[in-house]
């Protein structure tokens, strides 16, 4: 079942490669295609998240929290009743993410399996290819060169005056992941206290870019290119939906508390 799912992705990716003749461009177009297909899910996810955020400012929601803070069971019942009344599904923001999850893994697997660099990997790849749809004999070898990169190897830009290679993609992936996560995070309410969730999100904004950067540094550059394309398309997608928080990129002003002094 899963293998058949991966096969669909691999054949689409190789079909694009067959048309454009460049694996780097094929990865970018393939990522764009998948993002377009999953766009309705992204919109639904954003709507759900937005509704949940609005709900937290709702007076009735705040009252319920205060009233039943010591009775978890009753609190849950009242919350559910309010969800139902306002037509909000608490899972509407998570469900699209869950549905997208296997698609992201499938995309990743398609890219990694298509970058076969040994006979056994190539053999397994050819088993995925639909012979009636693609001509394996003409397709192989896949040209894995893109700009200065061999997409089947980790990327380093070697300059004659430097004794080491610069991991350009890893740096760009780290930066774009950071920008993406910052710009997609909701702006915290001014003067509001950071709750546990906000702190966790803040940690993720640091942790995820570093992790993605490390993956881009150590894995085949074809995957790093996919991470980069995915980040840039994601940012563009949010921008088109008007959901980017550019203010999150600006340094925060220190909150000044003015104490009233009694004369």
């Amino acid at each position, binding site marked *: 079942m899963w293998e058949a799912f991966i096969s669909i992705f691999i054949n689409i990716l190789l079909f694009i490669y067959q048309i454009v003749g460049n694996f780097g461009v094929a990865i970018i177009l393939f990522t764009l295609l998948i993002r377009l297909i999953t766009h309705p899910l992204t919109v639904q996810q954003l709507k759900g998240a937005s509704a949940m955020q609005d709900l937290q400012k709702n007076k009735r929601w705040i009252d319920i929290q205060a009233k039943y803070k010591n009775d978890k069971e009753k609190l849950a019942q009242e919350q559910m009743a309010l969800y139902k009344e306002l037509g909000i599904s608490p899972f509407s923001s998570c469900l699209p993410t869950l549905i997208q*999850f296997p698609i992201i893994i499938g995309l990743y697997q398609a890219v990694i*399996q298509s970058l076969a660099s040994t006979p*056994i*990997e190539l053999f397994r790849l050819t088993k995925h290819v639909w012979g009636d749809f693609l001509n394996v004999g003409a397709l192989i*070898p896949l040209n894995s060169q893109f700009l200065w990169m061999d997409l089947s190897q980790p990327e380093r830009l070697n300059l004659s005056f430097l004794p080491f290679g610069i991991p350009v993609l890893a740096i760009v992936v780290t930066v774009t992941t950071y920008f993406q996560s910052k710009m997609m995070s*909701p702006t915290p309410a001014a003067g509001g206290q950071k709750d546990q969730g906000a702190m966790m999100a803040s940690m993720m904004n640091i942790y995820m870019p570093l992790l993605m950067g490390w993956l881009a540094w150590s894995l085949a550059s074809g995957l790093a290119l996919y991470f980069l394309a995915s980040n840039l398309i994601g940012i563009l997608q949010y921008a088109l939906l008007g959901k980017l928080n550019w203010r999150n990129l600006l340094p925060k002003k220190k909150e000044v508390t003015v104490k009233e002094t009694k004369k």
Partner: protein
Amino acid sequence: MKSRAIPILILSLTLMLLLTSCSGGITATSWPGYSISEGKVFLSYQTGVFAVNLSNGNMIWKYPDKADSQRNYYAPPQIADGQVLVGDYLDALHSLNLENGTEKWKFDTTNSRFISSVKVEQDTILASGSDGYLYALDLQGGIRWKFKTGAANWAKPASDSETVYLPSMDHYLYGIDLKSGKEIWKTNLGGAVIAGLTLNSDNLYVGTLANEMLAVGKKDGKIVWRFGTDSAVWAIPVLKDGVLYFGDKASTIYALNADNASVAWRLSEVGGPIVGSAAVIEKGLVFPTEDGKLVAVDGNGQRLWEKQINGKLYSSLVVAEDRIVAGVNDGDAVLKAFDFNGSELWSFALPK
């Protein structure tokens, strides 16, 4: 906010786990490579090269003492001039002492994986590199020349006393002068070649991923004949008494007259895909199939016996003395030895 952050955190961590677990695919893997010489089987598999006693399957030595997880070995070792010559799947070609497995010299490249066995012609080592070069070295590891093709070279080069024949992934078959490394001719085969070719006094015989077996003239590289197969041909064909024997990915075995490609016989659906070359035994040939079957046929295409083993068979079979040695993937051993009736004699698993 809290309600959003927790599922995102869980999903992200799961994604990280899945992505990092997939990164194992970046450390190259393949099927076991091996050759037999002087009563020993020399095996390349995962992080080591092993010498195994052909008579009982006991390990004699192992290289290196301390495994490097980044440096894997799958190319079949070649024995020449008292050396075990073996390329790794990272960037180097190694010469090991035949008796004890200690390293004699190492030829470093920038990033070339060595997929196939090297060929030694007179005093020249010919090594196909995945960086698109064919390297010609002397027996001490000094470079004589290198020849660039249009794509990775996975196939083992063949040679006679004057010319090197290199089938490449770039769909071309090259004739190269052994002494100078200059191109003599090149021929478009129409498909990539994975394993290599076989030759006789006049022709080269090579199978491609474009579902063809071709005969090419040694002198000028002209195509003598081409024969369409059911599927891709991965293995080097076996030439015996003027007949070419090979299998394809669609699990069909072919016996072709080497002169004109007329079909002597063909046998369909013998098991799984056939990736490795057949072994010649006294009564016929034995083919390995991906689904773990050894299929023995006689010279007329009649089945002699079949042996199902635990694991997958991608590697070419090798015959020495009175036994057939098979390399196994995903099984309980890496090497298994059989007699000519298919009875198992011994198996060798990697030491823990």
